[in-house]
């Protein structure tokens, strides 16, 4: 540590060059942060999927409905703890651009199924007592400025009420939070009994089922049993683990992981060039001084560590600044207004980013460092 001052002074020698290099590193890591957040938004749901949950949909496609009566039959299948259902409501609040999910559900079952949905007991009691009651996630509540007690009109693109009216009024009785930051807190859930009685068509039909299984290790077997139970009926099913279901949706969007990886490698390759070049220049300019250091007894190891420490200091500083700025920008929320509800910076990627910044410093510093080590004192001094 006593040589920190020396390393720092070396970086300050060409302030302009150092700051420009630093800034390009900062930019690279801001990008890294953004791309992680985008990826998290698109495939992050897979990671938070419950290993003990299955999703069951109609075999032909998700838009075909399943009978509500399947619940009782599912509950009796060996290995199934219990089942509940959701239905796509396709609602619009004020403007079609305000995209968020709404679904009619059975309140007790939903809250039991998703322990990550955190709702104060008083609010969940209120929900059980209010037929037109709905609970909404914190993110959407903040976005639309909804408070408990508000009556919100939502226009469904799919469901009409008995009188043909497509605008449904819900009383907000609760606002839920996520247990961790990966929980999607944009949906609005309302009561299925109210929905089923009021809707015009498809009474007694639901969109898809979620099943809690007793033993996650048995997921594949239970899924098979569920599909066999409804084989050759008018509505055959396809059951799969929740993670596979979400993964399936993500891969429908396209090969996101590949695109993100391609962009990141392009960026880091560029930064590698810029930083590597700066370090090489810095060492070249200092040949004479390094010769003096060697002449007065600094060892090769020390010389190598000076150069490496300098490049790592530069990249780690840039990396920390970039990741910090990215974190600040990302915590301001989804830039696409509602399309990416899970837009956030995963801690794991934050740590990966930090690791990459150290690695970047090492890779860009190692060649100039070796070059400095191989300097012969006499040659170096002669060049002064």
């Amino acid at each position, binding site marked *: 540590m006593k040589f920190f001052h020396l390393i720092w002074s070396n970086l300050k020698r060409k302030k*302009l*060059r150092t700051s*420009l*290099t630093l*800034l*390009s590193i900062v*930019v*690279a890591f*801001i*990008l890294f942060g*953004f*791309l992680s957040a*985008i990826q998290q938004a698109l495939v992050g749901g897979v990671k938070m999927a419950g290993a003990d949950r299955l999703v069951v949909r109609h*075999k*032909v*496609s*998700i*838009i*075909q409905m399943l009978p509500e009566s399947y619940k009782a039959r599912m509950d009796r299948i060996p290995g199934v703890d219990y089942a509940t259902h959701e239905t796509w409501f*396709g609602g*619009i609040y004020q403007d*079609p651009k305000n*995209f968020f999910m709404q679904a009619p559900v059975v309140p007790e079952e939903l809250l039991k199924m998703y322990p990550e949905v955190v709702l104060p007991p008083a609010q969940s009691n209120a929900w059980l007592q209010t037929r037109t009651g709905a609970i909404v996630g914190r993110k959407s509540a903040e976005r639309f400025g909804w408070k408990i007690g508000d009556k919100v009109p939502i*226009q469904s*693109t*799919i469901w009409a009420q008995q009188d043909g009216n*497509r605008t449904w009024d819900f009383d907000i009785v609760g606002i839920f939070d996520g247990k961790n930051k990966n929980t999607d807190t944009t949906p609005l859930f309302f009561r299925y009994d109210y929905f089923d009685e009021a809707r015009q068509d498809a009474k007694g039909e639901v969109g898809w089922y979620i099943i809690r299984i007793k033993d996650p290790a048995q997921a594949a077997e239970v899924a098979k049993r569920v599909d066999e139970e409804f084989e*050759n009926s*008018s509505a*055959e099913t*396809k059951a799969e683990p929740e993670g596979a279901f979400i*993964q*399936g*949706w993500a*891969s*429908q*969007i*396209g*090969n996101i992981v590949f695109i993100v990886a391609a*962009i990141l490698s*392009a*960026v880091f*390759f*560029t*930064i590698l*060039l*810029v930083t*590597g*070049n*700066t370090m*090489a*220049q810095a060492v070249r300019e200092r040949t004479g001084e390094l010769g003096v250091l060697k002449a007065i007894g600094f060892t090769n190891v020390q010389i190598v560590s000076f150069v490496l420490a300098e490049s790592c200091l530069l990249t780690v500083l840039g990396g920390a600044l970039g990741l910090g700025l990215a974190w600040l920008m990302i915590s301001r929320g989804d*830039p*696409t207004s509602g*399309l990416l509800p899970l837009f956030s910076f995963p801690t794991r990627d934050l740590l990966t980013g930090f690791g990459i910044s150290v690695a970047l410093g090492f890779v860009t510093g190692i060649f100039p460092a070796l070059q400095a080590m191989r300097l012969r004192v006499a040659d170096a001094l002669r060049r002064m």
Partner: protein
Amino acid sequence: MAGLINWFSQIASITKFGLMSIPQRRGAVAATVIGIAGVVAVLVGVLSIAAGFKQAMSVSGSPDGAIVLRSGADSEMVSGLGREETRVIADAPGVARNDQGPLASAELFVIINLPKRTTGTDANVPLRGVELAALQVRDHMKIIRGRMFDWGRDEVIVGDGAAQEFAGLEVGSKIKVGRYEWPVVGMFSANGGAAESEIWSDAKVLQAAYNRGDSFQSVSVRLNSPAAFEAFKDSLTSNPQLSVKVSRQSDYYAEQSEVITRLITTLGFLIAFLMAVGAVFGALNTMYSAVAARSREIATLRALGFGGGAVVVSLMLESLLLALVGGVIGGGLAYLAFNNFHTSTMNWQSFSQITFAFRVTPELLARGVVWAAVIGLIGGLFPAIRAARLPIAAALREL
């Protein structure tokens, strides 16, 4: 006049001098050129996705085509119309006719799960049930392999894009819809339009398979002329029997592509902008070190009577040239890597897959080169000013 020529010849000789010294600083120069190439490649690549998607949507709409949905529906998927309503719509004023009747096709639009070829995972492939006039109400529809399905028979034809993206859609194979198995008898193209992502069958066959009774989801019509649209729309919206939403085909498809295009362009520009900022720093670095390495030469030139302005212009020219080389390389890379790259994505409005090809258009390439030029100019400006302001005496003394 002579002064101007002299000035230009000064610029030319300093620029030549600078360019000749490039081999000595090839590391820094390569870093800049590759950095800018990276920015342009990413910018053009990302925007080509949006351009391709937009293209697929815009060729789908014909100027004299219109589509009618239930009012309040934002896509065919959630719309619903009864047999009576579709008859009223087909007989509305403005709808073109041929000897078989009005050019109107009442259609069903559902999705069916088929595995994607690239990943093997299930995808929501659109399945459309159509009526006789379907081929006439759309532009560019052409059977390219096999034959059209027979009306009333359990047969389907598949779009070119769908056959490329999803497994099991070759002519001669069979698709399984619930308990039914339907042979694929033909393949069609639609000039790259959205219909190419779809599977088509007779609407009656699909109604039976999906228990839809005698109901439909949309009616597509061809009008007598693009100008006939307003009268057509007014007659339907003022009809008390109906509660429908009438759109031109082109507007409908533009609306359908809006979410995806917005997502891609917002994120694409954000990424490209950040990368451009990074590249500006890289270019600044290169040019500053170029100036530093040549401060003595520049001072000598100034002492010989070369003007400060000429120094600035020539350094900026050098930087611009490097940036343009980077821009062209980046554009070329993007063209080779992305143009006509076939893929499919989810169309959020209808939850169904749409296949399309990335398009690296000349406008996108031009935009990439403009970005490169701007990066080069900014990267050259400040170092050039510094070079011109170098105190001559001090710089010479360093000799």
